[in-house]
């Protein structure tokens, strides 16, 4: 018999205490929900009830790019921001006396907020304009909105605010893109470093605000992995920043868990040495390359691991195969301390509902804590 609510169960693990059962907390967002015909789940909270999982709702109350943080960005002085929609395209612009930087996004039926077709920064001139934008950017807390959502979730789980990405990830994911970031770091190392440092300062302002939200945990959507980065780049551009942010979180008694959904096996030493409290969306092969039980050996018992199920497998496997997959994983993770069973990033569009139920069934049957299968 379960004797904890989803909220209590997740909170227990995040605080290093024993849960009644292992939490099962897939990353479910509108990418998956949009493929679900059932009228039963208009929201992620509904989905958690229908599919019987412990909800960790991400990006609460919002995800403000390019920082990737759950707060509001406010342009000040003579900097203006505008977002214009033209058919399936969205143009986002920062207009400054030094010039304008513009990003172009394309929307699709499934992905309403669109995907970047052109980045804000394409050359050194754009970088200089963006630096001016940063100098005139402030942040506004959304603590009240966070509290409202967290209350709405109630005992179904917890709301998790997103913390800002390391400066290099903001370049890679939103501002410049991979190829140009690599080339601009070679061609303009000083100016790039200046902007990285400035983003870091701004990030610290974000942390100040977000760590004031009533949450046991914050997650930055780092997406760091050797899928796109090299271990060298991680060491040079991510590690120290992450450690510094982890310390800020620690000072506020908040867990700092980095979302890293790609290939991590070649970064394992750096991750083991890192000050983060845990890794979110740890993904096994083939999208990722690290099983949580292998990671556990390298990372030690203290770090929280969230993940373990490869999303593409969850979508493709049969119900019986899903059950075997999860059983095997639970067996190898015994006794299951500091582990939240989850997907290695977003549950795919079109994942069969019965596969999600299959995971819940195995968790209910064998997930009593400590695991003893």
């Amino acid at each position, binding site marked *: 018999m379960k004797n904890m609510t989803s909220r209590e169960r997740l909170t227990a693990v995040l605080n290093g205490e024993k849960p009644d059962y292992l939490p099962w907390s897939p990353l479910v967002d509108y990418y998956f929900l949009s493929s679900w015909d059932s009228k039963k789940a208009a929201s992620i909270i509904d989905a958690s009830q229908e599919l019987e999982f412990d909800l960790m709702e991400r990006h609460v109350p919002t995800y403000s790019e390019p920082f990737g943080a759950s707060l509001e960005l406010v342009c000040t002085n003579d900097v203006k921001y505008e977002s214009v929609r033209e058919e399936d395209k969205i143009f986002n612009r920062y207009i400054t006396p030094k010039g304008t930087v513009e990003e172009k996004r394309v929307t699709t039926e*499934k992905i309403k907020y669109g995907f970047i077709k052109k980045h804000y920064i394409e050359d050194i001139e754009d970088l200089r304009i963006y630096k001016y934008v940063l100098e005139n950017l402030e942040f506004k807390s959304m603590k009240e909105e966070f509290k409202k959502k967290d209350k709405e979730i109630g005992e179904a789980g917890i709301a998790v605010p997103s913390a800002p990405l390391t400066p290099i990830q903001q370049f890679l994911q939103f501002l410049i893109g991979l190829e140009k970031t690599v*080339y601009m770091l070679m061609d303009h190392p000083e100016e790039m470093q200046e902007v990285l440092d400035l983003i870091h300062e701004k990030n610290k302002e974000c942390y100040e605000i977000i760590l004031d939200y009533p949450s046991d945990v914050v997650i930055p959507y780092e997406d760091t992995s050797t*899928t796109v*980065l090299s271990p060298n780049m991680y060491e040079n551009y991510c590690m120290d920043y992450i450690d510094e942010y982890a310390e800020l979180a620690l000072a506020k008694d908040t867990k700092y868990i980095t979302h890293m959904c790609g290939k991590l096996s070649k970064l394992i030493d750096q991750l083991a040495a890192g000050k983060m409290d845990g890794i979110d969306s740890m993904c096994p092969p083939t999208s990722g390359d690290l099983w949580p039980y292998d990671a556990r050996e390298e990372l030690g018992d203290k770090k929280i691991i969230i993940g373990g199920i490869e999303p593409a497998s969850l979508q493709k496997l049969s119900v019986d195969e899903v059950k075997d997959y999860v059983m095997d994983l639970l067996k190898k993770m015994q006794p299951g301390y500091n582990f939240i069973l989850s997907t290695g990033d977003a549950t795919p569009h079109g994942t069969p509902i019965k596969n999600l139920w299959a995971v819940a069934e195995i968790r209910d049957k064998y997930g009593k804590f400590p695991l003893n299968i």
Partner: protein
Amino acid sequence: MAGMKVIGEKFKNDKIFVPGVLVAARAMNTGMEILKPKLIESGVQSAGKVVIGAVESDLHDVGKNLVAMMLEGAGFEVYDLGTDVPTEEFVKKAKEIDADIVGLSALLTTTMNEMGTIIEALEKAGIRDKVSVMVGGAPITEDFAQEISADFYAKDAAEASNVAKDIKKKIAS
């Protein structure tokens, strides 16, 4: 170009990573800009013509770009159609340039089935026999490639370039 082969092998064996390949590719392209006119002048032929792109509704291009770079490094003439490429575009371009190889990239389980549609369209257009279809991307497997009757699957950019060279050899012999 021989350098790109070394880079490809190192990438395959996790000795260098994506940023390293990008840097090498840029060095190659800079060199090629100088060399290209001279190669054309002296009548050096390209290794073959490749049309490549990410299938419709797929916007991931990092992997596809790496494959394109490695193929260029192996001496192929590459026509990169970009991302979110409609089926007709692949067919049209393959016909127009008389392609040897069509390379299809998909990173999403929701878009990978487009690959089968493109292969059917190449068949309908009557050029399926003339082109070899090579597929790749994180969710693609050898089995899936066979299922949709693609000719070749490659798991990474280095392998893609080796496969392309093999295809070309086969055509030549």
